[in-house]
């Protein structure tokens, strides 16, 4: 089983509504880009590679019919969640939408449990009852996994409300897409968050498309970092393909939120290589655009180059990391393939909690 597959769809040349890849490209790291030390680069590399390989495996297992329904892969966007997680402290909370596998792995949730949930098995994080879009871990402070576009923004604001209510000095990272950023409840939440100075960082993952709709076809203001202006929420545009830039902006935003100054918006300029979900022929963008993003801006390749050139790691050392990651992913896939489906009696459990 050596392939992942991807509906890429041949781009009909001259089709309307195509985004021009040279417009609003992800900026290459400027010379004053923050630097990582060797350990940070190694950590980032491992984490991002784990997500990449995990997602490739998911794609493959979907192709084999082991994963059902919708399956939204995070390939291309790895630097966003990995850089942000590197900027958090213990106890900080995370919530996101349905493109959530990467976030769960970055939060330290068990790859086996995640994969087994994708295959709908009893060992899945939600016992097979949630699926790809609905997973949670109280232990790892991961609050989902939500299938309704934009819902996580109000929910994340509520988690931040609870942080402040308890005065526990934690923040809530609330991730959502460029498409979700047009939902009304986002602005209801921005307003309350600033009004009540809630410790929340809104991370807008601008991967340029919401399903088949490019940002400029759906958004009057395409600079999402400005979406908080009328609420006085500061915002920044960040090169979301460079894990160092993400990390540095993350530190700044999290510190702002934690210190009681209220919410902060980070717009991550990023890109998804695969279709929106597995059954997306991706006819709305050119192949050249995808190829260019992969070849010039790949977040993992950037770190890999630094490991080889600046930190003088050998190819063999990198290979060792690769095989370790592959082993984790294969183990997860193996478990998720053979773990039994949930018992039929689970149909009627977890609907209500018992009252004391």
């Amino acid at each position: 089983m050596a392939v992942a597959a991807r509906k890429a769809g041949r781009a009909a040349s001259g089709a309307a509504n195509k985004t021009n890849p040279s417009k609003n490209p992800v900026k290459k790291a400027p010379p004053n880009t923050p630097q990582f030390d060797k350990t940070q680069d190694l950590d980032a590399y491992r984490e991002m590679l784990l997500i990449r390989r995990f997602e490739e495996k998911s794609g493959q297992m979907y192709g084999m019919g082991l994963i059902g329904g919708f399956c939204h892969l995070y390939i291309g966007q790895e630097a966003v969640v990995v850089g942000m997680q590197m900027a958090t402290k213990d106890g900080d909370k995370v919530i996101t939408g349905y493109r959530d596998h990467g976030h769960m792995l970055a939060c330290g949730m068990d790859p086996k449990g995640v994969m087994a949930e994708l295959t709908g098995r009893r060992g899945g994080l939600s016992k097979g009852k949630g699926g790809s879009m609905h997973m949670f871990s109280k232990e790892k402070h991961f609050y989902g996994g939500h299938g309704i576009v934009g819902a996580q923004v109000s929910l994340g604001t509520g988690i931040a409300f609870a942080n402040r209510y308890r005065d526990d000095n934690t923040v809530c990272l609330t991730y959502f897409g460029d498409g979700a950023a047009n939902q009304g409840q986002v602005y209801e939440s921005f307003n309350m968050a600033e009004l009540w100075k809630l410790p929340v960082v809104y991370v807008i993952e601008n991967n340029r498309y919401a399903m088949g709709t490019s940002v400029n076809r759906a958004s009057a203001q395409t600079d999402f970092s400005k979406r908080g202006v009328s609420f006085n929420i500061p915002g920044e545009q960040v090169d979301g393909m460079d894990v160092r830039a993400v990390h540095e902006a993350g530190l700044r935003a999290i510190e702002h939120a934690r210190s009681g100054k209220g919410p902060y918006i980070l717009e991550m300029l990023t890109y998804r290589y695969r279709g929106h979900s597995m059954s997306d022929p991706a006819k709305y963008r050119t192949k050249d655009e995808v190829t260019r993003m992969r070849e010039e801006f790949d977040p993992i390749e950037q770190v890999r180059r630094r490991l080889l050139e600046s930190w003088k790691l050998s190819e063999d050392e990198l290979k060792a990391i690769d095989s370790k990651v592959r082993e984790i992913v294969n183990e997860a896939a193996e478990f998720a393939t053979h773990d039994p489906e949930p018992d039929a009696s689970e149909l009627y459990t977890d609907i209500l909690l018992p009252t004391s």
Partner: protein
Amino acid sequence: MAIDILMPALSPTMEQGKLAKWLKKEGDKVKPGDVLAEIETDKATMEVEAIDEGVLAKILVGDGTDNVAVNTPIAVLAGEGEDASTVQASAPAPAPAPAQAAPTPDAQAEGLADRPAPDGRSGTDQMPRAEPAAPAVISNRTTHDAMAEIPEGTEMVTMTVREALRDAMAEEMRRDPDVFVMGEEVAEYQGAYKVTQGLLQEFGPRRVIDTPITEHGFAGVGVGAAYTGLKPVVEFMTFNFAMQAIDHIVNSAAKTLYMSGGQLGSPIVFRGPNGAAARVGAQHSQDYAAWYSSLPGLKVVVPYSASDAKGLLKSAIRDPNPVVFLENEILYGQSFPVPKLDDFLVPIGKARIHREGKDVTIVSYGMGMTYALKAAQELEKEGIDAEVVDLRTIRPMDTDTLVASVMKTGRCVTVDEGFPQSGVGAEIATRIMEHAFDYLDAPVARVTGKDVPMPYAANLEKLALPSVAEVVQAAKAVCYR
């Protein structure tokens, strides 16, 4: 080790496709992400991408081949250091995959081929499944004794429903620092209907929170806070405006416990006035009991009396599940005796026999009780002894008490202000039919709001709502009088 490259499926329904073209040839080195081939289905063209590194040792299915079944090996990839020329296909191409649930090669390799393929998309008809445990709707018909909720000799004080609700919140806030109240005008203004009067003064702005007019947003904020274990009481100025927020009530609050495999509950109360007030027109006059009651994962409570309002709201706040608590603006100002007890709780899910009788059962809840009780008095004058059951909770519905009453009287009339189709009356009639059919001496009759948006004109509004006369008439009809 040589690795088979399989024909992938890219959609839940894809069974086969055409191998249009190879972009790599035998002997080529490939690395993860390289596009190996293009395949076509009737819907789209797609690319087959390599996941592993190696050498494309052998192409098993050539350019332009039609009808290649999903999961058929299409090429072999030789690993590092392997001699590509000696690599053989590890398995012959299987016959085209059957329409559904073909055992995957992995399963075959593991000797698991006789296990049905775990394909959630293929329907479950061919899966041997244990009968799911039926939900225990009717146990052994032990009816709840609502009389015992208030110990004999308890001193009773008269208060309005409004005061009872406020006292319930205040008592629970004193008892548990995780309880807080949020909503429009709940704090400084003391409540749009003055239900939260005095709470800000006692508990301060940290726990009594005025929100902007953003129902969708603050309902989500409440649910998010509840995920972390806080116990929000979210007030909607009226439930008509909760339509803006229904997504969070349904999708974020009611379903998350299930979707998280039992990990993440939502201990939250959504409360506020529900149903018709008076002369406010269609957008401000709707009973949502039936809507919310159709949802597993929610509890739906609709009190009539002040003592039930108090005891049930306290139970709702303590409940670890999301509770929709439907009040009524007209009832807010009505006074009832309420027990003077330090901690008076009424259990959720238990109906109350409000008036005992032997000839006909009248079932209602909330505002509907006003028609039901007056009708019972009228009927008494005509020699019909009606039993009036106050449901108090719509979900979970106390079927045991209903059924026991109908087994006694043999006749049943339902009364509610909601729309008739798929309404609470329809649900009660179904349950009676399912569990007490043999005891019925007449078909169940429904008295409901009419099947029209609420009109504004005073006379039309009156016609659109149930009336005492309609309840009397329905009761007489089922008694064949």
